[in-house]
């Protein structure tokens, strides 16, 4: 029987299959549709300091092999999160990672302050694809200096595991990942959505109200894998792989390339049972390939001669 436990820096998980922020609500919505306790960890929807109503519709549109979204980080805010959402999540038999969004470094700090004295939180994932108000809307992780700056501030606030979730919309993601590592995060999550755009050619309007939006789903998997490869080859930090993962083959591609865990995103919408199925099939693959434990798989990419 293959051992599925994995380690993300200081975090020990029973298996490497997580669900991605913003694609699993606050967990409660999925009750009855899948067994949450089968997950390696739950990552919550991004929580911000204040509640946010989100963007006007249309917020989503379907594309071949993917979708665009601009939800606008709609969420209940950290206070309501602690009161209304945390109790359910904390009672689950899986690890809990709270994803945090902010417009300024202080926003992240303030959210963490609200969460620090809550037990049963196993780590924070920092959504660095948020537009940074001070930097004219450039996402936090689009620039190494900004990334290092915000990480430095946040690292001082907590002993809990910190994961920086990076945007793929950059020239050299290795530089951003290195800056985040230098700043003291324990791992990086790669990737958040690609910037995408679509037009309705009859109305000639953008298909998403906000205009450019986040592209997710199977179509972005090759790009996500390339980002994981780049960071795995150049930076010494644990990687959580994200992007278009729908089945065990997708998950294996990320693990082999160097991710020590993966997150299932858009696939939850189509099949909320995807993540537990990947856990089962991963175990089958490892047994069939006589792999006793995950480290034999992680980063086991072979080069062409």
């Amino acid at each position, binding site marked *: 029987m293959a051992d599925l436990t994995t380690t993300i820096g200081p975090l020990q998980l029973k298996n490497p299959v997580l669900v991605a922020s913003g694609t699993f609500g606050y967990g409660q919505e999925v*009750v009855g*549709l899948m067994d949450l306790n089968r997950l390696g960890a739950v990552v919550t929807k991004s929580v911000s300091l204040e509640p946010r109503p*989100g963007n006007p519709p249309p917020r989503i549109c*379907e594309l071949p092999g993917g*979708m665009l979204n601009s939800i606008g980080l709609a969420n209940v805010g950290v206070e309501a999160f602690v009161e209304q959402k945390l109790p359910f999540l904390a009672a689950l038999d899986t690890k809990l990672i709270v994803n945090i969004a902010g417009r300024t470094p202080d926003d992240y700090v303030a959210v963490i302050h609200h969460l620090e004295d809550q037990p049963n939180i196993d780590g924070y994932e920092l959504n660095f694809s948020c537009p940074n108000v001070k930097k004219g809307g450039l996402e936090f992780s689009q620039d190494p200096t900004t990334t290092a700056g915000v990480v430095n501030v946040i690292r001082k606030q907590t002993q809990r595991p910190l994961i920086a979730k990076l945007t793929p919309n950059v020239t050299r993601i290795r530089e951003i990942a290195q800056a985040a590592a230098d700043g003291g995060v324990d791992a990086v999550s790669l990737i958040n959505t690609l910037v995408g755009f679509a037009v309705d050619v009859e109305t000639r309007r953008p298909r998403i109200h906000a205009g450019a939006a986040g592209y997710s789903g*199977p179509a972005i998997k090759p790009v996500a894998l390339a980002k994981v490869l780049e960071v795995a080859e150049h930076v010494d930090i644990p990687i959580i792989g994200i992007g278009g993962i729908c089945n065990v083959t997708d998950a294996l591609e990320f693990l082999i390339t160097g991710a020590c865990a993966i997150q299932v995103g858009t696939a939850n*919408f189509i*099949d909320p*049972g995807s993540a537990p199925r990947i856990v089962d099939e991963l175990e089958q693959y490892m047994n069939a390939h006589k792999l006793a434990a995950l480290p034999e798989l992680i980063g086991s990419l072979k080069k062409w001669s």
Partner: protein
Amino acid sequence: MSALPSRAVCDCPVDAITEVADGTHLLRFRSPVISNQSLPGQFVNIKVSGGQHPLLRRPFSVCRVNAREGWFEVLWKVVGQGTAIMAQARPGDTFSVIGPLGRGYTVPESTRTALLVGGGLGVAPLPFLAENLAAAGTSVEVYVGARSKGDLSMLEAFGSLGLEPVIATEDGSVGACGFVTAPLTTRLKELQGAPDAHLFSCGPTGFLKAMTALSKQYEIPGQIAIETVMACGFGICVGCAVPAKRQVGTGRRYKLACIDGPVFDSDEVELDG
């Protein structure tokens, strides 16, 4: 009210599929779970292909249900890729269906006269609602509008309940010529302000706007079943937002069509378009 805790992901075999009107199909799925749990106005979310094309599920109202025999039906018109694939279904094929989903029609205790109004394919959720209302002894009147005779469907379903829908077609090929709002308005004038009358409607946005206006004008409260694009159908994508009319506090507020709806009170949400 919502039956959230009882919904499930089910592999449902196709019992039967019929083309009931031009390009309009009625499909009967076998599913004891979904047929047992569904309420009128709720919907199911169907994976129309085994592969990833199209990627997302397609939402359809529960049209008719037989809990005892363990089946439910959906009614749809081919408008794109997903609905075209579904039209190719054959008895014995199996589809992954999530349901029942959403908040259906809520029949107020006081209701004695229920006016069910369907615009085009908006007729879909009404047979199930009519059946439940009729079984509860409520007086049911059905109004159906369509472009033309060939677009009408489910009339026998109402007939078998002893109901004779008032029909209007835009080309006059059957029933009154024009919009169904005309005969409906005549009736609403009679009912104006009646505390025991209620309007239940479903149809395209323009039609629902008209229903909302009539509801207000003739002081007959109403509920509307709306359609939005949906990525999940059960509350995790937050993509199906509809602006709320009654704002709580300041700033914009949104309802989610998939869990707060798809049925809303007619003064609850903004209908654009």
